[in-house]
């Protein structure tokens, strides 16, 4: 079991994100940002795990995260991403998208840019606009893409006052998350179990491809793309299922893995070690999925929290034609050969784990029980 450090922070945490390390840096991550939700006043906060030189006065043991600075955020923080080293982009339940700037000199945060009504509803027959929650944001400097409950997709540029591109009515249902596929292309998931690929080079409000779960139309809540193999995509659904997709072929997931007992709120491939995947859920669990093939048989040692996955479906008939060496360990569908090992990371199950982020050996997650958990020894 990894060594987790928990801290109660008196606010429900909706998002946690590590600050990216400068390119080529060999340090381990030590600063992360959090956003809160459902409080009377919500905050975006920056935390640090660094060694502060002086010994902690309150006897807090080494490695506990300390608040660097925070700033009030209007509405729930629905999503949060680092734009670069200093800037943080947040999505608000008020439909507002904000860029915060961190000043390391005096440890403060300030608003550097804001698009106040990025997402909105238009009532029937009236010109009045009401705010619609912005549910997801993704950044790829200088571009920022946001999606919302209004089914709208916005493309912003950090230096532009107005949206560069807006796709109205992109989705008839709520868009829950967005990620970049290849640079002009993005991937969205919605509340009727569809995965859509959009190409900003194309005009109009039609996606270039729709993939969907068959039958039950289970809402999808999160999406992440394999860091090296860009056609491999993982999504998490309302029923807690993990779906692995190959966007090059087929319109259905390559595999459906039975996972959590309730909504899967986030899924993340490990950025530098993509055979590892992390998921968290409304049921209060945080899981580590290990699909690296050279895993020694460990399940007898760790009875608790470890179980092998069950493949519910695996189709894609032409899978066999693809050269074996090119297949990611996530796409191979031979359940006998590849066991995925799953470890439950949090000691006791509590309220929903809303968000997680991994960077190098570090993992941070935040919960509705108002606690932030951090570990810096993921693979030890």
């Amino acid at each position: 079991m990894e060594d987790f450090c928990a801290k109660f922070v008196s606010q429900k945490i909706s998002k946690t994100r590590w600050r990216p390390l400068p390119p080529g840096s060999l340090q381990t991550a030590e600063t992360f940002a959090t956003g809160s939700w459902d409080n009377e006043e919500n905050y975006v906060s920056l935390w640090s795990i660094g060694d502060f030189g002086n010994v902690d006065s309150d006897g807090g043991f080494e490695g506990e995260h300390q608040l660097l600075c925070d700033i009030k955020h209007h509405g729930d923080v629905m999503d949060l991403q680092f734009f670069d080293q200093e800037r943080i982009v947040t999505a608000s339940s008020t439909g507002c998208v904000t860029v915060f700037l961190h000043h390391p000199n005096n440890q403060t945060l300030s608003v550097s840019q804001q698009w106040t009504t990025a997402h909105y509803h238009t009532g029937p027959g009236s010109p009045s606009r009401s705010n619609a929650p912005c549910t997801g944001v993704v950044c790829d400097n200088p571009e920022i893409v946001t999606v919302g409950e209004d089914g709208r997709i916005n493309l912003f540029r950090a230096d532009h006052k107005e949206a560069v591109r807006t796709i109205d009515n992109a989705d008839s249902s709520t868009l829950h998350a967005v990620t970049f596929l290849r640079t002009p292309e993005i991937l969205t998931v919605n509340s009727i179990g569809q995965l859509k690929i959009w190409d900003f080079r194309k005009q109009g409000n039609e996606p270039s491809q729709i993939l969907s779960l068959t039958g039950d139309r289970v809402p999808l809540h999160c999406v992440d793309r394999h860091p090296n193999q860009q056609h491999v995509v993982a999504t998490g659904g309302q029923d807690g299922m993990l779906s692995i997709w190959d966007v090059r072929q087929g319109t259905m997931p390559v595999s459906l893995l039975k996972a959590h007992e309730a909504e899967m709120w986030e899924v993340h491939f490990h950025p530098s070690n993509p055979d590892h995947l992390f998921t968290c859920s409304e049921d209060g669990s945080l899981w580590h999925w290990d699909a690296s093939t050279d895993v020694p048989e460990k399940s007898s040692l760790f009875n608790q929290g470890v179980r092998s996955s069950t493949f519910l479906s695996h189709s894609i008939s032409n899978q066999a034609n693809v050269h074996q060496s090119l297949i990611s360990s996530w796409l191979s569908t031979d359940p006998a050969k590849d066991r995925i090992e799953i470890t439950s990371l949090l000691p006791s199950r509590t309220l929903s784990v809303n968000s997680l982020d991994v960077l190098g050996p570090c993992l941070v997650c935040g919960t509705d029980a108002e606690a932030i958990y951090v570990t810096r020894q993921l693979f030890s």
Partner: protein
Amino acid sequence: MEELDGEPTVTLIPGVNSKKKQMCFDWGPGEMLVCETTFNKKENSETVPGCPFIYIIRKDIDVYSQILRKLFNESHGIFVGLQRIEEELTGKSRKAQLVRVSKNYRSVIRACMEEMHQAAVAAKDPASGRQFSSQVSILSAMELIWNLCEILFIEVAPAGPLLLHLLDWVRLHVCEVDSLLADVLGSENPSKHESFWNLVTILVLQGRLDEARQMLSKEADVSPSSAGMCRVLGDLMRTMPVLSPGNTQTLTELELKWQHWHEECERHLQDGTFASSPHLECLCKIMLGDEAALLEQKELLNNWYHFLVTRLLYSHPTVKPIDLHFYAQSSLDLFLGGESSPEPLDNILMAAFEFDIHQVIKECSIALSNWWFVAHLTDLLDHCKLLQSHNLYFGSNMREFLLLEYASGLFAHHSLWQLGVDYFDYCPELGRVSLELHIERIPLSTEQKALKVLRICEQRQMTEQVRSICKILAMKAVRNNRLGSALSWSIRAKDAAFATLVSDRFLRDYCERGCFSDLDLIDNLGPAMMLSDRLTFLGKYREFHRFYGEKRFFDAASLLLSLMTSQIAPRCFWVTLLTDALPLLEQKQVIFTTEQTYELMRCLEDLASGRPVQGEASAQRLQEDLENTKLEILRLALARNLARAIIKEGSLEGS
């Protein structure tokens, strides 16, 4: 009606003069609305302008403290864990488990207390500093009471170990001595420190005799005149028989040894061994349990329960739990000496020493400003099977009553409501209904929050609430012109009526604009299509368009016809459907067979003959519409198609 246990507190509403004005109120789940009213008051009501505000009165204000939120959240985890350990454990392991849970609760209180203390020190204005400090003292009292309850009710320590536990209890809560000890030892010449003798006395009062002995040896080192006396007293301290946890000696053996030791102390005092040093003589008297000597140290003892424990240590070390209340009462009386009356905390502790759990809980409920303490303590004691017999004359049992109060307080809070859910879950009698009432009142600001509330309801099979939440969301979506979303929500709620309503909106939009919106949803309805007839029609009608677009005319034609003949299509839509048939009738190929054409003709005549289906007016308008525009064209097209079909079918048969 029972008599009141205490004077109710008065809350003043700013801006309202309750002597001159009339007030009205309404109860909420955790709060109360209060405002001024002129109801039923004839005279002088219009003269003086009143207070224009409606006030929200919250009863459980501690819920709103930032620091206490940590207490609520952390203890929630412990609470849920406690409910789960349950039944399978019995006897020793169960008791150990419960003691551990109790210690966990206490450590959470302590952590909270420390943080509150830091906040008090760091507070910028004196008012908030005072507020924090008073919170610290409340938390510290809570921990003190809890700890005592743990020793008496959960640990159920027998004679012997009981005193050891009580000593630990006193040492934990009278902790100024540690800083004093560091201070004295840190000074250049400890035995000349002004507080040296105070320190030694406190150490003896707390039964920390090893440390006291070390201090005495320091004194002996610097003043050879008293070295002998110090050695003798030190020896007495060393030889005092105590019960050590690992030892197997019986209580009687201990008592016997203790008696000998006591006599030896007595003899030294009689012989005047320490006559030349009043300090040492006083210490010896304390060790003999001399009440007068103990009471002289009132300042150092701080409070009566410290006095009680010291007194027991040096006069009744093997006190039985059952005799405790007798010594406690007399200690309280002696200590206060009739000068002051007992405070609420004293009463609570006294009730605990009397093993009157209900009194403890009752006094705590009155004295403390939050339900957290009594709810959690009662629950824990209930798990120790100590509260079975007690039933209230209202609601269910006491544990449940207190948990419900606490959880309602959480639900009144803007964001702590999620914690409340689990507390309701473990109230077998009224928890479910309470949850049902509270959960419907959670404001649903975003879909994400709604999903969390829905999950709570679905896990507990609260179908009525699931339906109502989905309906709220569907209504919201309709208001925002998000028909696709609205349809999704009504499908999730399995709300046929609403699905029909939304489907009608879709069809109307189609009629107006000539194209469908939200195709990604309608094309993928799947089995959900069966929810309502109108939704089925919508899905099928869209399928017709797809067939037509894909030039699968035969499929399109039979689907179109079946929509009308099976009565799925609403009659008001038949005109549109028949019009949609026109291009099929005009194809070069013959699409409709004779039989199908007859069917179409019948449908057309049905409409034309104007069987009033949905009220006279609409039927009339329908007819006019039909006649003015399409009737003739349709009849002509149908007749021509019939002719072609007869020829085609005849010639096929003939060939």
